[in-house]
């Protein structure tokens, strides 16, 4: 699972911090389309308290939860594991029905 440990910059900050860049510093975040807004807020508050370097160690859980909300890593791997298991059972003859009927079209 080494390729799932990317260290992407989740919050883009400008290179030089000036009062001018502080006006429009936080343009890219997860608050507008806020499916992961609460996760991001918790992570940012923790990082602000501890700073960048110590924050990466102490707030590891919050950072991982925010990553999980954004990129759906574990959820996707869960889905893939279930699909592969279903296909393996079907090919071995252990299942009578390959796939379940899906949800209703207007269910989501």
């Amino acid at each position, binding site marked *: 699972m080494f390729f799932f440990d990317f260290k992407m910059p989740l919050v883009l900050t400008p290179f030089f911090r000036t009062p001018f860049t502080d006006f429009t510093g936080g343009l890219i975040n997860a608050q507008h389309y806020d*499916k*992961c807004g609460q996760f991001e807020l*918790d992570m940012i508050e923790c990082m602000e308290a501890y700073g960048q370097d110590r924050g990466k160690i102490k707030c590891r*859980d*919050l950072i*991982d*939860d925010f990553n*999980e*909300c954004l990129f*759906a890593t*574990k*959820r*996707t*791997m*869960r*889905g893939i*594991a*279930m*699909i592969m*298991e*279903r296909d393996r*059972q079907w090919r071995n003859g252990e299942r009578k029905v*390959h*796939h*379940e*009927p*899906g*949800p*209703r*079209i*207007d*269910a*989501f």
Partner: protein
Amino acid sequence: MVTPKTQDLPPPGGYQKIPFMRVPAKTLFNGFQIIGAYIGITTFAVYIYHLTNKQIQREEVEMRSARLALMPMLIAERDREFLKQVRKNRDEEARLMKNIPGWVVGTYYGEPIYKTKPVDHFDDNSLSWDDLCVHSDYRTQMIRQNFHLWN
């Protein structure tokens, strides 16, 4: 002997008169009548438009009221169907993965999805068609995604 010359003379009685005076067009209405007719017809038309506009506003109000009354019920039914499907997925997952060593229903091999939330935290804010149709085939999921793309 002198023969009489042939000359190009006017016909006997002279030429007719050449009409060169202006012949203006026949005036059916004068300017004031035309402007008055314009104002009269416009007034009548504005009145008809006003009546039609009132009718349209009444129809829009009725349509809006019906929509406001029905929307909560329709959305609630959609949410109910969504939760029913999630429960079916969980039961199906329990049946499917019961012989896999280390698998706990709702986690990834025992590791919960969110580390800082309680175990029964249901994050319905970030679900997708991938999670709903995980036990169905690809075509089913694509039909539903296509339907939602066009609606």
